[in-house]
């Protein structure tokens, strides 16, 4: 009797989480996959089995271009976030020795999250707009005669907006891995005659790779599905897969949107798997 209980116990303990997982994650995704094969007649979905939705996505030049554009955003945002986040995390981890100050500065990095996404985006308009602060400055300094228009409602603005939003998701995991590095390793490297750059390249960078990988996963998944920033900062001129899906949902074309969502999910999973292939993040968990 006691032995039977021992065997069943782990399963029972895992049951609640499994049920929640099935109900709120697996079931909705399964529904999306099913709906992606349905038909749409202009105002209603019709249960059926058709590959039309997928065919129309793969044969449309626009969807392909939209995916390429989304990858472009992912790459640019990833690159600039990493370029910003690594020095910030490095500074926090190695140059601030007072723990209280470290925590305060880390919290300062979360300031952008204190107000809503939309407000943050709209507040870029008076900064980057034609009559905005930056243009006033440039024109005041006689650097340009005409306001520079590409600051707002452009790919530049979209990438800027997303870097502003998501860099913190890169800082946190990198900071975390840097804090875990055994300081004696650095001392050892210095003792062995390594220069500062060599220490960074041979010791710190490899040891922070799992943090970078986790940060990259955040950035990739967030940017792949992004549509609000793309719309507000791009002024409706720029396209991303997330925005495509939101327009399709807006016009009630659920099956087509579902098919796009399934492809988006697959592509995102492939990217995440590729990252996991390159870097082993288990030591961080």
């Amino acid at each position, binding site marked *: 009797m006691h032995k039977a209980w021992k065997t069943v116990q782990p399963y029972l303990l895992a049951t609640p989480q499994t049920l929640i997982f099935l109900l709120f994650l697996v079931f909705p995704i399964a529904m999306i996959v099913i709906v992606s094969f349905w038909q749409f007649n202009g105002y209603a979905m019709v249960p059926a089995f058709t590959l039309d939705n997928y065919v129309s996505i793969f044969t449309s030049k626009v969807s392909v271009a939209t995916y390429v554009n989304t990858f472009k955003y992912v790459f640019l945002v990833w690159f600039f976030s990493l370029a910003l986040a690594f020095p910030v995390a490095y500074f926090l981890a190695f140059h601030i020795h007072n723990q209280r100050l470290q925590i305060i500065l880390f919290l300062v990095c979360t300031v952008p999250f204190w107000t809503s996404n939309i407000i943050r985006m709209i507040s870029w308009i008076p900064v980057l707009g034609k009559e905005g602060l930056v243009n006033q400055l440039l024109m005041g300094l006689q650097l340009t005669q005409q306001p520079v228009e590409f600051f*707002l409602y452009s790919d530049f603005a979209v990438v800027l907006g997303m870097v502003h939003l998501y860099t913190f998701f890169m800082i946190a995991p990198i900071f975390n891995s840097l804090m875990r590095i055994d300081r004696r390793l650095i001392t050892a490297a210095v003792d062995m005659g390594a220069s500062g750059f060599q220490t960074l390249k041979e010791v710190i960078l490899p040891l922070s790779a799992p943090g970078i990988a986790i940060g990259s996963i955040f950035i990739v998944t967030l940017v792949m599905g992004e549509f609000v920033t793309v719309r507000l900062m791009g002024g409706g001129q720029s396209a991303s897969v997330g925005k495509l899906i939101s*327009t399709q949902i807006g016009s009630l074309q659920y099956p087509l949107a579902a098919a796009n969502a399934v492809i988006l999910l697959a592509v995102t999973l492939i990217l995440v798997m590729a990252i996991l292939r390159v870097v082993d993040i288990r030591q961080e968990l």
Partner: protein
Amino acid sequence: MPRISRRQLLRTGLAAGAMLTATQCSPKTAEAPLGTPNNPSTGPQINTNQIKDVTLRFIGTGVSQINEIRDKAQADLGFKLDMRALSTEENNQIAITQPGQYDVFDGEYFSLPLVVPSGNLQPVDVSKIKDFDKIVSIFTTGKFEGAKVEASQGTAPYRVMYLKDKDAKEFATEPTDWATLIPFQYNADTLGYRPDLVGKKIESWAELFDPAFKGKTSLLDIPSIGIMDAAMVAEASGLLTFGDKGNMTREEIDKITALLIEQKKAGQFRAFWKTFDESVNLMSSGEVVLQSMWSPAVTAVKAKGIKCVYAPLKEGYRAWGGGIGLSKNLSGIQLDAAYEYMNWLLDGWVGAFLGRQGYYSAIPDNAKKFMKPAEWDFWYEGKPAAEDMVDPFGKTLEKKGALRDGGSFKERMGNVVVWNSTMKEQVYLVQKWNEFIAA
């Protein structure tokens, strides 16, 4: 950082849980008196004042889901209203996919070709609408003193006003006793511009494609409406002609989206907007000098002290109309309440309220009863304002002596040439529109 031990956390959590359970699961000690809503009596009873317990759930766009209207209706009618302000798209989505969520649908006529086939609306029995015959003939008969609007294209309200019979999902071409929506507000839309930045009078839709405004124009990114504006521009500039702008063929959709993409690539547009406040921001920040706009958005720009003109254009206006319809789930006393609300809606108070923002009422004569003569003259007659015009929320919109852009009710509504539209090729249109936005 203060460290909380695991044990401490567990203890606090368990205590909180126990408290919740104790308070939520214990039997209610103080029971409501018998016969009240919280403790209804089981036996039969006659309640002459049942309507007090009715709550009607509304869904609609922000245009009319206004607290002041709700409060006034509740005070006058004695039952409760629960209003939800949504975007046009969300409103349609809920109307079509979640009929259990609403009792009254406050939507636009051009949504009806999508909503009616879903079977989620029940027809309105015209005989129960007291002033139905007083409603502006644009809605009820499609006639309007021989003006241009009689031949207008698109989803003109008259074309989707009636159903063939009580259970039909098909629109009737002639008046019947069964209406889809009861109209209460509508307007004629056009282009808005900043006279200080444009430097001349805008008199034609064609100006939106004028290279002089390169990088300074905007179009709205709602396919069913944006395409109509685009079609007006294309026709006015002599680039394209359409058999019926409100019901384009695939070739026509291909041509117009190709033209839009060409203009976009040439850098004609600064941005595209989807919501009211975006259009206000674009205009007031000077990012855009000429764009498709809605009447209250122009008003909002003016209210910031920035000059903005709602241009009367020689080719005519693109119009929209809104009304309320009944959910198929309504019956009994709830249905009676909904009819009472409809009659109240047409009675004039709401018409006057919305009229002070520049919208038109379904029965102008009823609205007139609730408006000051100066207001009526300004908004409906096109006469100069005899005093400052104040909107329903107390903001001054126009100074004494100002004129309404486009003139009187007859001049504006009579000059409508297209209505917001749902075309037969709607699915194809949305697909091509996405291509344009993504291009």
